[in-house]
Protein backbone atom coordinates (compact mmCIF):
# COMPACT_ATOMS: atom_id res chain seq x y z
CA UNK A 1 0.00 0.00 0.00
CA UNK A 2 1.39 3.37 -1.03
CA UNK A 3 0.57 6.37 1.07
CA UNK A 4 -2.06 8.61 -0.60
CA UNK A 5 -1.08 12.17 -1.40
CA UNK A 6 -3.96 13.71 0.47
CA UNK A 7 -6.09 12.99 3.54
CA UNK A 8 -4.41 14.78 6.44
CA UNK A 9 -7.21 16.06 8.56
CA UNK A 10 -6.59 18.33 11.48
CA UNK A 11 -9.16 19.32 14.03
CA UNK A 12 -8.03 22.32 16.03
CA UNK A 13 -9.67 23.22 19.28
CA UNK A 14 -13.14 22.55 17.89
CA UNK A 15 -16.17 23.18 20.08
CA UNK A 16 -19.85 22.75 19.31
CA UNK A 17 -22.64 23.86 21.57
CA UNK A 18 -26.36 23.33 21.16
CA UNK A 19 -27.94 25.88 23.46
CA UNK A 20 -26.61 24.95 26.87
CA UNK A 21 -25.25 21.51 25.91
CA UNK A 22 -21.68 21.30 24.79
CA UNK A 23 -21.67 18.39 22.35
CA UNK A 24 -18.01 18.72 21.38
CA UNK A 25 -15.61 20.38 23.77
CA UNK A 26 -12.24 21.78 22.60
CA UNK A 27 -11.25 18.78 20.56
CA UNK A 28 -7.76 18.63 19.04
CA UNK A 29 -6.98 15.77 16.72
CA UNK A 30 -4.59 15.07 13.87
CA UNK A 31 -5.80 12.38 11.50
CA UNK A 32 -2.99 11.12 9.29
CA UNK A 33 -3.44 10.30 5.63
CA UNK A 34 -4.31 6.69 5.00
CA UNK A 35 -5.03 6.04 8.62
CA UNK A 36 -7.96 4.05 10.02
CA UNK A 37 -8.95 6.13 12.99
CA UNK A 38 -11.85 5.27 15.23
CA UNK A 39 -13.85 7.60 17.45
CA UNK A 40 -15.02 5.41 20.29
CA UNK A 41 -17.32 6.56 23.05
CA UNK A 42 -20.64 5.97 24.68
CA UNK A 43 -23.78 7.30 23.11
CA UNK A 44 -24.05 11.07 23.52
CA UNK A 45 -20.30 11.61 23.73
CA UNK A 46 -20.27 13.86 20.64
CA UNK A 47 -18.98 11.47 17.98
CA UNK A 48 -21.70 12.14 15.42
CA UNK A 49 -21.55 15.86 16.03
CA UNK A 50 -17.83 15.90 15.39
CA UNK A 51 -18.32 13.89 12.20
CA UNK A 52 -21.09 16.22 11.05
CA UNK A 53 -18.82 19.21 11.51
CA UNK A 54 -16.13 17.53 9.45
CA UNK A 55 -18.68 16.65 6.74
CA UNK A 56 -19.97 20.22 6.77
CA UNK A 57 -23.51 19.57 8.01
CA UNK A 58 -22.93 21.40 11.26
CA UNK A 59 -20.95 24.58 11.81
CA UNK A 60 -18.32 24.52 14.51
CA UNK A 61 -19.03 26.99 17.31
CA UNK A 62 -15.30 27.67 17.52
CA UNK A 63 -12.03 26.18 16.37
CA UNK A 64 -10.86 25.15 12.92
CA UNK A 65 -10.90 22.09 10.69
CA UNK A 66 -8.28 21.75 7.96
CA UNK A 67 -7.57 19.30 5.17
CA UNK A 68 -3.96 19.00 4.09
CA UNK A 69 -3.25 22.22 5.94
CA UNK A 70 -6.04 24.36 4.46
CA UNK A 71 -9.09 25.32 6.47
CA UNK A 72 -12.32 23.90 5.11
CA UNK A 73 -14.75 25.68 7.40
CA UNK A 74 -15.99 27.87 4.58
CA UNK A 75 -16.34 25.02 2.10
CA UNK A 76 -19.98 23.91 1.78
CA UNK A 77 -20.78 20.25 2.44
CA UNK A 78 -21.24 19.34 -1.21
CA UNK A 79 -17.81 20.72 -2.07
CA UNK A 80 -15.86 19.04 0.72
CA UNK A 81 -15.53 15.78 -1.17
CA UNK A 82 -15.60 13.65 1.94
CA UNK A 83 -17.28 10.33 1.47
CA UNK A 84 -19.68 9.38 4.16
CA UNK A 85 -21.41 6.19 5.19
CA UNK A 86 -24.44 7.11 7.25
CA UNK A 87 -25.99 5.32 10.14
CA UNK A 88 -28.79 3.41 8.37
CA UNK A 89 -26.89 3.82 5.06
CA UNK A 90 -29.22 6.47 3.57
CA UNK A 91 -29.26 4.78 0.17
CA UNK A 92 -31.47 6.33 -2.50
CA UNK A 93 -34.45 3.99 -2.39
CA UNK A 94 -35.65 4.78 -5.91
CA UNK A 95 -32.32 4.12 -7.61
CA UNK A 96 -30.71 0.84 -8.51
CA UNK A 97 -27.47 -0.16 -6.85
CA UNK A 98 -25.60 0.95 -9.95
CA UNK A 99 -27.26 4.38 -9.97
CA UNK A 100 -26.64 4.75 -6.26
CA UNK A 101 -22.96 4.09 -6.71
CA UNK A 102 -22.60 6.28 -9.78
CA UNK A 103 -24.46 9.15 -8.12
CA UNK A 104 -21.41 11.15 -7.01
CA UNK A 105 -19.99 10.87 -10.52
CA UNK A 106 -23.34 11.66 -12.16
CA UNK A 107 -23.72 14.89 -10.25
CA UNK A 108 -20.15 15.78 -11.17
CA UNK A 109 -21.11 15.24 -14.81
CA UNK A 110 -18.26 12.85 -15.51
CA UNK A 111 -18.11 11.06 -18.87
CA UNK A 112 -20.33 8.01 -19.28
CA UNK A 113 -17.51 5.60 -19.97
CA UNK A 114 -15.59 6.63 -16.90
CA UNK A 115 -18.68 6.28 -14.77
CA UNK A 116 -19.41 2.82 -16.08
CA UNK A 117 -15.98 1.40 -15.51
CA UNK A 118 -15.69 3.03 -12.11
CA UNK A 119 -19.02 1.58 -10.99
CA UNK A 120 -17.93 -1.91 -12.08
CA UNK A 121 -14.70 -1.43 -10.19
CA UNK A 122 -16.63 -0.44 -7.08
CA UNK A 123 -19.06 -3.33 -7.39
CA UNK A 124 -16.07 -5.65 -7.54
CA UNK A 125 -14.44 -3.94 -4.57
CA UNK A 126 -17.43 -4.57 -2.35
CA UNK A 127 -18.13 -7.97 -3.94
CA UNK A 128 -21.51 -7.06 -5.34
CA UNK A 129 -20.95 -7.95 -8.98
CA UNK A 130 -24.26 -8.91 -10.49
CA UNK A 131 -26.29 -6.90 -8.02
CA UNK A 132 -26.06 -3.65 -9.98
CA UNK A 133 -29.63 -3.64 -11.23
CA UNK A 134 -31.34 -4.34 -7.94
CA UNK A 135 -33.06 -1.79 -5.79
CA UNK A 136 -31.72 -1.27 -2.26
CA UNK A 137 -34.78 -2.86 -0.70
CA UNK A 138 -33.98 -6.06 -2.59
CA UNK A 139 -30.67 -6.40 -0.73
CA UNK A 140 -29.79 -7.71 2.72
CA UNK A 141 -28.54 -5.36 5.40
CA UNK A 142 -24.93 -6.33 4.86
CA UNK A 143 -25.22 -5.83 1.12
CA UNK A 144 -26.84 -2.44 1.59
CA UNK A 145 -24.00 -1.48 3.85
CA UNK A 146 -21.53 -2.39 1.14
CA UNK A 147 -23.45 -0.37 -1.45
CA UNK A 148 -23.24 2.62 0.85
CA UNK A 149 -19.52 2.06 1.15
CA UNK A 150 -19.04 1.73 -2.60
CA UNK A 151 -21.07 4.87 -3.18
CA UNK A 152 -19.00 6.83 -0.70
CA UNK A 153 -15.71 5.59 -2.16
CA UNK A 154 -16.72 5.91 -5.79
CA UNK A 155 -15.42 9.44 -6.26
CA UNK A 156 -12.15 8.66 -4.49
CA UNK A 157 -12.62 11.01 -1.55
CA UNK A 158 -9.53 11.88 0.50
CA UNK A 159 -11.36 11.04 3.70
CA UNK A 160 -14.17 8.60 4.36
CA UNK A 161 -16.43 9.25 7.31
CA UNK A 162 -18.35 6.30 8.71
CA UNK A 163 -20.98 6.77 11.42
CA UNK A 164 -21.73 3.47 13.14
CA UNK A 165 -22.03 1.76 9.76
CA UNK A 166 -22.44 -1.69 11.24
CA UNK A 167 -24.89 -0.74 13.97
CA UNK A 168 -27.85 -2.32 12.18
CA UNK A 169 -26.20 -5.68 11.51
CA UNK A 170 -26.33 -8.74 13.70
CA UNK A 171 -23.23 -9.78 15.59
CA UNK A 172 -21.99 -12.55 13.31
CA UNK A 173 -22.42 -10.49 10.16
CA UNK A 174 -20.79 -7.56 11.89
CA UNK A 175 -17.61 -9.46 12.50
CA UNK A 176 -17.55 -10.59 8.89
CA UNK A 177 -18.09 -7.10 7.54
CA UNK A 178 -15.47 -5.67 9.89
CA UNK A 179 -12.90 -7.79 8.19
CA UNK A 180 -14.10 -6.80 4.72
CA UNK A 181 -14.10 -3.14 5.69
CA UNK A 182 -10.57 -3.38 6.97
CA UNK A 183 -9.48 -5.14 3.79
CA UNK A 184 -11.08 -2.46 1.66
CA UNK A 185 -9.36 0.23 3.67
CA UNK A 186 -6.05 -1.43 3.09
CA UNK A 187 -6.72 -1.61 -0.65
CA UNK A 188 -7.95 1.93 -1.30
CA UNK A 189 -5.67 3.67 1.15
CA UNK A 190 -8.18 6.39 1.94
CA UNK A 191 -8.25 7.94 5.39
CA UNK A 192 -11.09 6.29 7.32
CA UNK A 193 -12.63 8.15 10.20
CA UNK A 194 -14.84 5.61 11.86
CA UNK A 195 -17.39 6.14 14.60
CA UNK A 196 -18.55 3.39 16.91
CA UNK A 197 -19.55 2.72 20.47
CA UNK A 198 -18.48 -0.92 20.15
CA UNK A 199 -15.04 -1.46 21.70
CA UNK A 200 -14.39 -4.78 19.99
CA UNK A 201 -15.06 -3.20 16.62
CA UNK A 202 -12.66 -0.41 17.47
CA UNK A 203 -9.98 -2.78 18.67
CA UNK A 204 -10.14 -5.11 15.71
CA UNK A 205 -10.05 -2.57 12.88
CA UNK A 206 -8.35 0.62 13.93
CA UNK A 207 -4.85 1.91 13.46
CA UNK A 208 -5.59 4.36 16.23
CA UNK A 209 -8.52 4.86 18.55
CA UNK A 210 -9.81 8.11 20.05
CA UNK A 211 -11.83 7.55 23.19
CA UNK A 212 -14.41 10.28 23.65
CA UNK A 213 -16.30 11.20 26.77
CA UNK A 214 -18.75 14.08 27.20
CA UNK A 215 -17.49 15.85 24.09
CA UNK A 216 -13.85 15.65 25.13
CA UNK A 217 -11.07 13.38 24.03
CA UNK A 218 -10.19 11.03 26.87
CA UNK A 219 -7.24 9.28 25.28
CA UNK A 220 -5.72 8.64 21.86
CA UNK A 221 -3.54 5.71 20.91
CA UNK A 222 -3.14 2.44 19.07
CA UNK A 223 -5.43 -0.36 20.21
CA UNK A 224 -2.54 -1.96 21.97
CA UNK A 225 -1.47 1.21 23.76
CA UNK A 226 -4.97 1.92 24.90
CA UNK A 227 -5.54 -1.59 26.08
CA UNK A 228 -2.23 -1.97 27.81
CA UNK A 229 -1.81 1.54 29.09
CA UNK A 230 -5.17 3.14 29.71
CA UNK A 231 -4.64 6.50 31.31
CA UNK A 232 -7.93 6.91 33.12
CA UNK A 233 -10.52 4.82 34.86
CA UNK A 234 -12.93 5.69 32.07
CA UNK A 235 -10.53 4.53 29.33
CA UNK A 236 -9.67 1.34 31.15
CA UNK A 237 -13.29 0.57 31.82
CA UNK A 238 -14.67 1.47 28.41
CA UNK A 239 -12.06 -0.38 26.40
CA UNK A 240 -12.04 -3.93 27.69
CA UNK A 241 -12.71 -5.03 31.27
CA UNK A 242 -10.71 -3.90 34.21
CA UNK A 243 -10.35 -4.37 37.96
CA UNK A 244 -9.41 -1.26 39.86
CA UNK A 245 -7.09 -1.43 42.82
CA UNK A 246 -6.48 1.33 45.34
CA UNK A 247 -2.90 1.32 46.54
CA UNK A 248 -1.37 4.17 48.54
CA UNK A 249 -3.60 7.01 47.30
CA UNK A 250 -3.41 5.86 43.66
CA UNK A 251 -5.70 3.81 41.42
CA UNK A 252 -4.38 0.95 39.33
CA UNK A 253 -6.02 -0.97 36.52
CA UNK A 254 -5.68 -4.73 36.37
CA UNK A 255 -7.12 -6.67 33.41
CA UNK A 256 -9.01 -9.86 34.43
CA UNK A 257 -6.91 -12.11 32.17
CA UNK A 258 -3.69 -10.90 33.77
CA UNK A 259 -4.56 -12.39 37.11
CA UNK A 260 -3.23 -15.85 37.92
CA UNK A 261 -5.47 -18.03 39.96
CA UNK A 262 -4.89 -21.37 41.72
CA UNK A 263 -6.43 -23.48 44.46
CA UNK A 264 -5.36 -22.17 47.86
CA UNK A 265 -1.63 -22.59 48.62
CA UNK A 266 -0.60 -23.48 45.09
CA UNK A 267 0.37 -20.04 43.77
CA UNK A 268 3.91 -18.65 43.60
CA UNK A 269 3.72 -15.04 42.61
CA UNK A 270 4.85 -11.53 43.39
CA UNK A 271 1.63 -10.22 44.72
CA UNK A 272 -0.82 -12.65 46.09
CA UNK A 273 -4.09 -12.53 47.95
CA UNK A 274 -6.71 -15.07 48.83
CA UNK A 275 -10.43 -14.96 48.16
CA UNK A 276 -13.53 -17.01 47.75
CA UNK A 277 -15.27 -17.68 44.42
CA UNK A 278 -18.69 -16.06 44.37
CA UNK A 279 -19.87 -16.83 40.85
CA UNK A 280 -18.58 -18.54 37.74
CA UNK A 281 -19.84 -17.57 34.33
CA UNK A 282 -19.11 -19.44 31.20
CA UNK A 283 -17.98 -17.78 27.96
CA UNK A 284 -16.82 -20.68 25.84
CA UNK A 285 -13.08 -20.08 25.65
CA UNK A 286 -12.87 -18.47 29.06
CA UNK A 287 -14.77 -18.49 32.26
CA UNK A 288 -15.14 -15.47 34.46
CA UNK A 289 -14.72 -15.92 38.16
CA UNK A 290 -15.99 -13.33 40.58
CA UNK A 291 -13.72 -13.63 43.59
CA UNK A 292 -14.37 -11.89 46.90
CA UNK A 293 -11.20 -10.97 48.73
CA UNK A 294 -10.80 -11.04 52.48
CA UNK A 295 -11.31 -7.26 52.65
CA UNK A 296 -14.72 -7.64 50.97
CA UNK A 297 -13.63 -6.33 47.54
CA UNK A 298 -14.43 -8.32 44.43
CA UNK A 299 -12.03 -9.05 41.58
CA UNK A 300 -13.02 -10.33 38.18
CA UNK A 301 -10.72 -13.03 36.87
CA UNK A 302 -10.63 -14.62 33.38
CA UNK A 303 -9.56 -18.21 33.31
CA UNK A 304 -8.67 -20.28 30.27
CA UNK A 305 -11.15 -23.12 30.47
CA UNK A 306 -9.23 -25.80 28.65
CA UNK A 307 -6.12 -25.47 30.74
CA UNK A 308 -8.09 -25.37 33.97
CA UNK A 309 -10.65 -28.08 33.37
CA UNK A 310 -12.80 -28.64 36.48
CA UNK A 311 -10.32 -26.76 38.65
CA UNK A 312 -12.76 -24.31 40.19
CA UNK A 313 -16.16 -24.34 41.82
CA UNK A 314 -18.31 -21.78 43.59
CA UNK A 315 -17.43 -21.37 47.28
CA UNK A 316 -13.87 -22.57 46.76
CA UNK A 317 -11.05 -20.55 48.38
CA UNK A 318 -8.37 -19.59 45.88
CA UNK A 319 -5.10 -17.69 45.68
CA UNK A 320 -4.86 -14.76 43.22
CA UNK A 321 -1.61 -13.32 42.00
CA UNK A 322 -0.16 -10.97 39.36
CA UNK A 323 3.14 -9.55 38.33
CA UNK A 324 4.11 -5.87 38.67
CA UNK A 325 3.91 -5.16 34.96
CA UNK A 326 0.31 -6.40 34.88
CA UNK A 327 -0.98 -3.30 36.66
CA UNK A 328 -1.19 0.19 35.21
CA UNK A 329 -1.22 3.28 37.35
CA UNK A 330 -4.08 5.60 36.40
CA UNK A 331 -4.36 9.36 36.54
CA UNK A 332 -6.56 11.20 38.99
Amino acid at each position, binding site marked *: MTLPDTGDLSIKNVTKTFGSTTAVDHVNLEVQRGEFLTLLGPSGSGKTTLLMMIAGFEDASSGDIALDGASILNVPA*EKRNFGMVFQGYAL*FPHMTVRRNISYPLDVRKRPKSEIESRVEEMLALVQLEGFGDRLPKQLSGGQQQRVALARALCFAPPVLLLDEPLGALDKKLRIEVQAQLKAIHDRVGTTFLYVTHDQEEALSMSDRIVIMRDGKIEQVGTPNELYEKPRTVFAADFLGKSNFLERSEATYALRPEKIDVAPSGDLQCAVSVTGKIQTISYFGAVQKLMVMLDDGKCLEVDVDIWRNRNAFSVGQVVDLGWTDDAVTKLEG
Partner: protein
Amino acid sequence: MILPFLAVIAGFYIYPIANVLWLSVVEPEPGLGNYAALFDTESLRRIILTTIRICVVTTFFSVLFGYTIAYAMVHMDQRKQNLMLALVLVSFWISILVRTFSWLMLLGHNGLLNNGLQAIGVINEPIAFVRNELGVLIGMIHYMIPYAVLPLLVNMRNLDMRVMRASQNLGATGTQTFLRVYLPMTIPGIVASTILVFILSLGFYVTPAILGGGKVLMIAEYISVQILITLKWGTAAMLATLMLFGVLGMLYVMSRFMKLSAVFGGGR
Protein backbone atom coordinates in the same frame (compact mmCIF):
# COMPACT_ATOMS: atom_id res chain seq x y z
CA MET B 1 -68.30 -10.27 11.84
CA ILE B 2 -67.28 -9.30 8.32
CA LEU B 3 -70.50 -10.40 6.69
CA PRO B 4 -72.88 -7.76 8.05
CA PHE B 5 -70.19 -5.22 7.24
CA LEU B 6 -70.14 -6.36 3.64
CA ALA B 7 -73.90 -6.17 3.57
CA VAL B 8 -73.75 -2.56 4.73
CA ILE B 9 -71.17 -1.76 2.04
CA ALA B 10 -73.36 -3.38 -0.56
CA GLY B 11 -76.40 -1.49 0.68
CA PHE B 12 -74.73 1.88 0.85
CA TYR B 13 -72.45 1.78 -2.14
CA ILE B 14 -73.13 -0.99 -4.56
CA TYR B 15 -76.87 -0.66 -4.68
CA PRO B 16 -76.92 3.06 -5.61
CA ILE B 17 -74.15 2.57 -8.15
CA ALA B 18 -75.99 -0.34 -9.72
CA ASN B 19 -79.08 1.79 -9.73
CA VAL B 20 -77.29 4.57 -11.62
CA LEU B 21 -75.92 2.08 -14.15
CA TRP B 22 -79.39 0.67 -14.59
CA LEU B 23 -80.99 4.09 -15.06
CA SER B 24 -78.41 5.03 -17.67
CA VAL B 25 -79.63 2.26 -19.94
CA VAL B 26 -83.39 2.27 -19.26
CA GLU B 27 -84.29 5.98 -18.97
CA PRO B 28 -86.16 7.30 -20.91
CA GLU B 29 -86.25 4.11 -22.96
CA PRO B 30 -84.19 0.89 -22.85
CA GLY B 31 -81.05 0.96 -24.96
CA LEU B 32 -77.79 2.78 -25.32
CA GLY B 33 -79.44 5.99 -26.51
CA ASN B 34 -77.97 8.01 -23.66
CA TYR B 35 -74.47 6.90 -24.56
CA ALA B 36 -75.05 7.47 -28.26
CA ALA B 37 -75.85 11.08 -27.37
CA LEU B 38 -72.20 11.45 -26.43
CA PHE B 39 -71.26 11.01 -30.05
CA ASP B 40 -73.90 13.11 -31.69
CA THR B 41 -74.36 15.91 -29.17
CA GLU B 42 -71.59 18.40 -29.58
CA SER B 43 -72.54 20.27 -26.42
CA LEU B 44 -72.15 17.18 -24.23
CA ARG B 45 -68.69 16.67 -25.55
CA ARG B 46 -67.90 20.30 -24.95
CA ILE B 47 -69.06 20.09 -21.35
CA ILE B 48 -66.92 17.01 -20.80
CA LEU B 49 -63.91 18.69 -22.37
CA THR B 50 -64.42 21.85 -20.33
CA THR B 51 -64.64 19.73 -17.20
CA ILE B 52 -61.49 17.82 -18.01
CA ARG B 53 -59.61 20.96 -18.95
CA ILE B 54 -60.59 22.77 -15.76
CA CYS B 55 -59.87 19.74 -13.60
CA VAL B 56 -56.47 19.19 -15.16
CA VAL B 57 -55.44 22.82 -14.76
CA THR B 58 -56.84 22.92 -11.23
CA THR B 59 -55.04 19.73 -10.31
CA PHE B 60 -51.78 20.93 -11.78
CA PHE B 61 -51.72 24.21 -9.91
CA SER B 62 -53.18 22.83 -6.70
CA VAL B 63 -50.51 20.16 -6.55
CA LEU B 64 -47.82 22.67 -7.51
CA PHE B 65 -48.83 25.14 -4.79
CA GLY B 66 -49.60 22.30 -2.39
CA TYR B 67 -46.12 20.93 -2.95
CA THR B 68 -44.53 24.28 -2.30
CA ILE B 69 -46.53 24.76 0.88
CA ALA B 70 -45.90 21.25 2.17
CA TYR B 71 -42.20 21.64 1.37
CA ALA B 72 -42.04 24.92 3.25
CA MET B 73 -43.93 23.37 6.16
CA VAL B 74 -41.63 20.42 6.69
CA HIS B 75 -38.70 22.79 6.71
CA MET B 76 -40.16 24.98 9.44
CA ASP B 77 -39.60 24.46 13.11
CA GLN B 78 -42.21 22.38 14.86
CA ARG B 79 -44.16 25.29 16.30
CA LYS B 80 -44.59 27.10 13.00
CA GLN B 81 -45.35 23.82 11.32
CA ASN B 82 -48.22 23.13 13.72
CA LEU B 83 -49.53 26.62 13.19
CA MET B 84 -49.50 26.17 9.43
CA LEU B 85 -51.17 22.80 9.75
CA ALA B 86 -53.89 24.36 11.86
CA LEU B 87 -54.40 27.01 9.17
CA VAL B 88 -54.65 24.36 6.49
CA LEU B 89 -57.11 22.32 8.53
CA VAL B 90 -59.21 25.34 9.45
CA SER B 91 -59.74 26.04 5.78
CA PHE B 92 -61.58 22.72 5.55
CA TRP B 93 -64.17 24.21 7.87
CA ILE B 94 -64.94 27.29 5.84
CA SER B 95 -67.90 26.57 3.64
CA ILE B 96 -67.30 26.57 -0.05
CA LEU B 97 -70.06 29.13 -0.51
CA VAL B 98 -68.42 31.57 1.86
CA ARG B 99 -65.10 31.15 0.13
CA THR B 100 -66.62 31.58 -3.28
CA PHE B 101 -68.31 34.81 -2.31
CA SER B 102 -65.13 36.01 -0.64
CA TRP B 103 -63.41 35.72 -3.98
CA LEU B 104 -66.11 37.84 -5.53
CA MET B 105 -65.58 40.48 -2.89
CA LEU B 106 -61.85 40.33 -3.37
CA LEU B 107 -61.52 40.03 -7.13
CA GLY B 108 -64.90 41.15 -8.41
CA HIS B 109 -65.69 44.10 -10.64
CA ASN B 110 -65.95 46.31 -7.57
CA GLY B 111 -63.72 44.10 -5.46
CA LEU B 112 -60.88 45.13 -3.21
CA LEU B 113 -58.18 44.37 -5.75
CA ASN B 114 -59.77 46.15 -8.69
CA ASN B 115 -60.69 49.13 -6.55
CA GLY B 116 -57.20 49.22 -5.11
CA LEU B 117 -55.51 49.04 -8.48
CA GLN B 118 -57.82 51.71 -9.84
CA ALA B 119 -57.20 53.93 -6.85
CA ILE B 120 -53.45 53.85 -7.33
CA GLY B 121 -53.92 54.33 -11.04
CA VAL B 122 -52.45 51.07 -12.29
CA ILE B 123 -55.56 50.31 -14.33
CA ASN B 124 -58.49 52.34 -15.63
CA GLU B 125 -61.02 49.59 -16.18
CA PRO B 126 -61.60 46.76 -13.72
CA ILE B 127 -59.92 43.52 -14.74
CA ALA B 128 -62.22 40.53 -15.14
CA PHE B 129 -60.67 38.12 -12.64
CA VAL B 130 -63.95 36.39 -11.88
CA ARG B 131 -67.18 35.49 -13.66
CA ASN B 132 -65.15 33.61 -16.23
CA GLU B 133 -62.99 30.51 -16.45
CA LEU B 134 -60.11 32.26 -14.72
CA GLY B 135 -62.39 32.92 -11.77
CA VAL B 136 -63.44 29.29 -11.65
CA LEU B 137 -59.82 28.21 -11.65
CA ILE B 138 -58.85 30.65 -8.91
CA GLY B 139 -61.73 29.49 -6.72
CA MET B 140 -61.16 25.81 -7.33
CA ILE B 141 -57.41 25.89 -6.92
CA HIS B 142 -57.76 27.79 -3.70
CA TYR B 143 -60.27 25.28 -2.43
CA MET B 144 -58.18 22.29 -3.45
CA ILE B 145 -54.79 23.36 -2.14
CA PRO B 146 -55.36 22.01 1.38
CA TYR B 147 -56.38 18.68 -0.12
CA ALA B 148 -53.19 18.68 -2.13
CA VAL B 149 -51.08 19.62 0.89
CA LEU B 150 -52.08 16.80 3.22
CA PRO B 151 -50.92 13.71 1.30
CA LEU B 152 -47.72 15.54 0.35
CA LEU B 153 -47.10 16.56 3.92
CA VAL B 154 -47.48 12.99 5.15
CA ASN B 155 -45.11 11.83 2.42
CA MET B 156 -42.51 14.51 3.11
CA ARG B 157 -42.63 14.10 6.86
CA ASN B 158 -41.85 10.41 6.50
CA LEU B 159 -38.81 10.99 4.30
CA ASP B 160 -35.45 10.01 5.76
CA MET B 161 -33.62 13.32 5.68
CA ARG B 162 -30.29 11.53 5.96
CA VAL B 163 -30.81 10.59 2.35
CA MET B 164 -30.76 14.28 1.35
CA ARG B 165 -27.63 14.78 3.42
CA ALA B 166 -26.10 11.79 1.70
CA SER B 167 -26.82 13.38 -1.65
CA GLN B 168 -25.26 16.64 -0.59
CA ASN B 169 -22.31 14.83 0.88
CA LEU B 170 -21.81 13.01 -2.41
CA GLY B 171 -21.39 16.34 -4.14
CA ALA B 172 -24.88 17.22 -5.35
CA THR B 173 -25.95 20.87 -5.29
CA GLY B 174 -29.25 21.81 -3.67
CA THR B 175 -30.99 21.76 -7.04
CA GLN B 176 -29.50 18.40 -7.96
CA THR B 177 -30.52 16.93 -4.64
CA PHE B 178 -34.05 18.22 -5.09
CA LEU B 179 -34.47 17.00 -8.65
CA ARG B 180 -32.69 13.68 -8.36
CA VAL B 181 -33.61 12.60 -4.86
CA TYR B 182 -36.27 14.67 -3.12
CA LEU B 183 -38.68 14.93 -6.02
CA PRO B 184 -38.56 11.23 -6.95
CA MET B 185 -39.03 10.27 -3.32
CA THR B 186 -42.15 12.43 -3.11
CA ILE B 187 -43.77 10.93 -6.21
CA PRO B 188 -46.12 8.79 -4.11
CA GLY B 189 -47.33 11.96 -2.40
CA ILE B 190 -47.66 13.77 -5.71
CA VAL B 191 -49.66 10.94 -7.20
CA ALA B 192 -51.90 10.68 -4.16
CA SER B 193 -52.67 14.37 -4.11
CA THR B 194 -53.14 14.46 -7.87
CA ILE B 195 -55.70 11.67 -7.72
CA LEU B 196 -57.44 13.19 -4.72
CA VAL B 197 -57.63 16.69 -6.17
CA PHE B 198 -58.64 15.53 -9.63
CA ILE B 199 -61.47 13.37 -8.37
CA LEU B 200 -62.73 16.05 -6.02
CA SER B 201 -62.53 18.64 -8.82
CA LEU B 202 -64.70 16.51 -11.05
CA GLY B 203 -67.53 16.89 -8.57
CA PHE B 204 -67.31 20.67 -8.25
CA TYR B 205 -70.29 22.76 -8.99
CA VAL B 206 -70.93 25.63 -6.66
CA THR B 207 -67.68 27.38 -7.54
CA PRO B 208 -67.99 27.07 -11.32
CA ALA B 209 -71.61 28.15 -11.12
CA ILE B 210 -70.89 31.34 -9.24
CA LEU B 211 -67.35 32.35 -10.19
CA GLY B 212 -67.93 31.30 -13.78
CA GLY B 213 -70.72 33.82 -14.19
CA GLY B 214 -72.94 30.99 -15.43
CA LYS B 215 -70.81 30.47 -18.50
CA VAL B 216 -68.58 27.67 -17.26
CA LEU B 217 -70.66 24.54 -17.20
CA MET B 218 -69.07 21.46 -15.69
CA ILE B 219 -70.37 17.90 -15.61
CA ALA B 220 -71.43 17.94 -11.98
CA GLU B 221 -73.63 20.99 -12.40
CA TYR B 222 -74.99 19.63 -15.66
CA ILE B 223 -75.89 16.35 -13.97
CA SER B 224 -77.66 18.16 -11.17
CA VAL B 225 -79.62 20.25 -13.69
CA GLN B 226 -80.64 17.09 -15.52
CA ILE B 227 -81.85 15.50 -12.31
CA LEU B 228 -83.52 18.45 -10.64
CA ILE B 229 -84.74 20.68 -13.44
CA THR B 230 -85.02 18.97 -16.78
CA LEU B 231 -85.65 15.49 -15.35
CA LYS B 232 -83.42 13.79 -17.93
CA TRP B 233 -82.35 11.15 -15.44
CA GLY B 234 -81.05 8.89 -18.16
CA THR B 235 -78.57 11.51 -19.34
CA ALA B 236 -77.59 12.25 -15.77
CA ALA B 237 -77.05 8.59 -15.00
CA MET B 238 -75.05 8.16 -18.19
CA LEU B 239 -72.74 11.06 -17.27
CA ALA B 240 -72.40 9.81 -13.71
CA THR B 241 -71.49 6.38 -15.03
CA LEU B 242 -68.99 7.94 -17.37
CA MET B 243 -67.37 9.83 -14.50
CA LEU B 244 -67.28 6.73 -12.36
CA PHE B 245 -65.58 4.67 -15.02
CA GLY B 246 -63.34 7.57 -15.96
CA VAL B 247 -62.06 7.71 -12.41
CA LEU B 248 -61.75 3.93 -12.13
CA GLY B 249 -59.90 3.87 -15.43
CA MET B 250 -57.54 6.53 -14.19
CA LEU B 251 -56.85 4.58 -11.02
CA TYR B 252 -56.25 1.47 -13.09
CA VAL B 253 -53.74 3.18 -15.35
CA MET B 254 -51.99 4.61 -12.30
CA SER B 255 -51.90 1.23 -10.64
CA ARG B 256 -50.06 -0.15 -13.60
CA PHE B 257 -47.26 2.30 -12.99
CA MET B 258 -47.06 2.08 -9.26
CA LYS B 259 -48.37 0.26 -6.29
CA LEU B 260 -51.44 2.19 -5.20
CA SER B 261 -50.98 0.90 -1.69
CA ALA B 262 -47.71 2.83 -1.59
CA VAL B 263 -49.48 5.93 -2.85
CA PHE B 264 -52.16 5.75 -0.23
CA GLY B 265 -49.78 5.08 2.59
CA GLY B 266 -50.24 1.34 2.89
CA GLY B 267 -47.37 -1.14 3.38
CA ARG B 268 -43.77 -0.23 3.01
